[in-house]
């Protein structure tokens, strides 16, 4: 168990490719941290720098208060679960799990074979016990004598977990461990990893490109893009108060809707709509171009007959739209509508009256909407929620 502190950590590859730029983060003892972002965002590089598998170009990494920049991986007391499992193909499951422990024992040398036989035997017995206990916890005890090639994907992943667990390291690192599994198994293993964290209370750093996985697993998550940390906070914070348009778009499914427009006289104005911005929520909004972000569950699709013409109300605005497509999810449905030239997605209760191509009114709720400066990564424009 340990804290991890990253202080202005950078990674530059030859050719001035900057994989990670000045990441400064502090992970608390026993926290489950998820590094998340699209592929190539530097999340794996950051993890590998913590592990010691990648040299650090700038800044410092400290584990348990000790700067580990110059320490080789074996001396950092970390264990890692790899995406492709990385089980030694020539060793049985048992040997795979015991391998790290065997290397670390005190009486492993040839001299112990001659002079400390009793201690050596006791040590080996302790390792056997540990491996057996861990295997039992993960339900892989019957597999101990098998070679990795005789295991299924899920079993291999479990063994890889076991290999990390059995070492009882200060920090567990996971590099997209579930991405090779099928959807059902992934969800199963996700719950298991979460449970494992609850039980061991160990510090864990987990890399994934799947925001849903990040949201469900993380105590706190680090959202990254192009090597830059975009936001570091709880899943709730990242969802409810995204730092910028990128985070808002990355976290949550379906993706947040964005409408390009301007702020004019206390209202957000786009091609076919004008939404009054409640002063209580956005007290001082400077005029100028901006992007309005609305989550799909904040869009309400109404039959024209239900709501009359386009209108503006304090909690949002209703605008005329055309239904482009409908995806039924069972209990709810995703409806893609065109408002002016902008395509937006609404997640609503099932409504059989809606037809593709039909005209509807869409109510844009401002309750959980956000305003962003323009641009792909435009920062969220401060609102009264931040003060609270």
């Amino acid at each position, binding site marked *: 168990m340990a804290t991890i502190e990253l202080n202005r950590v950078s990674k530059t590859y030859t050719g001035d490719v900057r994989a990670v730029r000045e990441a400064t983060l502090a992970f608390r003892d026993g926290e489950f941290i998820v590094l998340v972002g699209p592929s190539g965002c530097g999340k794996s590089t950051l993890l590998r720098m913590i*592990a*010691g*598998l990648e040299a650090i170009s700038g800044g410092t990494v400290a584990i348990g208060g000790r700067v580990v920049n110059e320490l*080789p*991986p*074996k001396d950092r007391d*970390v*264990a*890692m679960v*790899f*995406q*492709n*499992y*990385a*089980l*030694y*193909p*020539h060793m049985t499951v048992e040997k795979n799990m015991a*391998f*790290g422990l065997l*290397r*670390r024992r005190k009486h492993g040398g040839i001299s112990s074979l001659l002079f400390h036989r009793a201690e050596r035997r006791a040590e080996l017995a302790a390792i056997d016990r540990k491996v057996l206990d861990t295997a039992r916890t993960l339900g892989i005890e019957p597999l101990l004598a098998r070679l*990795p*090639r005789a295991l299924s994907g899920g079993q291999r992943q479990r063994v890889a977990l076991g*290999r990390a667990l059995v*070492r009882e390291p200060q920090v567990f690192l996971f590099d997209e461990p579930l991405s090779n599994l099928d959807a059902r198994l992934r969800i199963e293993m996700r719950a298991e990893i979460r449970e494992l964290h609850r039980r061991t209370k160990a510090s864990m750093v987990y890399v994934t490109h799947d925001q849903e996985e990040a949201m469900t697993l993380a105590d706190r998550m680090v959202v990254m893009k192009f090597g830059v940390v975009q936001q570091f906070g709880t899943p709730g914070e990242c969802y409810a108060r995204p730092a910028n348009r990128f985070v808002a778009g990355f976290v949550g499914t379906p993706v947040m809707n964005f409408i390009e427009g301007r702020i004019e006289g206390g209202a957000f104005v786009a091609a076919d709509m004008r939404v009054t911005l409640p002063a209580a929520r956005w007290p001082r909004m400077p005029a100028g171009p901006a992007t309005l972000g609305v989550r799909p569950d904040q869009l309400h699709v109404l039959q024209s007959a239900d709501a009359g013409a386009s209108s503006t109300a304090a909690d949002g605005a209703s605008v005329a739209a055309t239904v482009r497509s409908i995806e039924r999810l069972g209990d709810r449905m995703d409806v893609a509508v065109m408002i002016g030239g902008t395509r937006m997605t609404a997640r609503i209760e099932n409504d059989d009256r809606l037809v593709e191509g039909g005209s509807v009114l869409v109510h844009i709720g401002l309750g959980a909407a956000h305003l962003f400066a323009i641009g792909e990564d435009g920062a969220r424009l401060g609102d009264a929620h931040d003060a609270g």
Partner: protein
Amino acid sequence: MRSRTEKTLIYALLVAGTVTFLFPLWWMVAVSLKTPEAAQAATVRGGIASLVPTDPQWHNYPDALMQMGSVRWTGFLDALANSVVVTILATAGTALSSSLVGMAFARMRFRGSRPMFLVMLGTMMLPAQVTMIPLFILFRNLGWIDTFLPLVVPAFFGNAFFIFMYRQFIAQIPEALLEAARLDGQGWFGIWWHVILPLTRPVTAITAVFTFIFTWNDFLAPLIYLQSDDQATLSVALNSFRNQYGGITKVNLLMAASLTTMVPCILLFLAAQKQFIEGLGKGAVKG
């Protein structure tokens, strides 16, 4: 489905090939079992009769081994021991050093690794005859003449061809396996011993068998560097069946002794056959 004629043709070709390749071996067996006169006649006149061992002289085999060298039996036993020592050391040395160097070229990033690799490959283009005299001078200056060292020590510095083979094979091993080993507490030597060597077993089998056969049969190097009788390896000791003018007087005994010295190579090949086939079949290593 192949037609009957096609099948017959293929078998006929295979049988013809086998017969061609086995013919010299059979001739050796036939001659080794003949009386000295019949053997002499077979080498001079040949003919079908020379291929059929009538009245096999089985005692030729012990006789041949006994007469190797100047002292009865000792010559053969000395040479056998010498061959075994030199071959085992050279084989182990080549396999260990080539896999180490192969791993370095495949996995370690260091300045000049590519030019060094190319230079190493370049050494394969040098004919042995070119390096023979400089090497002899070098070993003489080191005081290694008439010892096993010139036959064994160079093996511990790797062999360009096998290094190349190891490098190609090791480059296929997923990087994550090596990283896992690093996290499990292994240094480069630990990774090599615990991960690379077991995973490159097919390459090691090929390296070992080829080096074994080459060293066991090598005639020139022992002839150049070993001078005393008691240092001779088997291939050099076979020379004792030649007379002082270079002629062969006891051809039946020479064949018997030669066949006996071939036995270890044949046994090794049969034992390693499975590894060979595995090595050819599964190139990739899956994590």
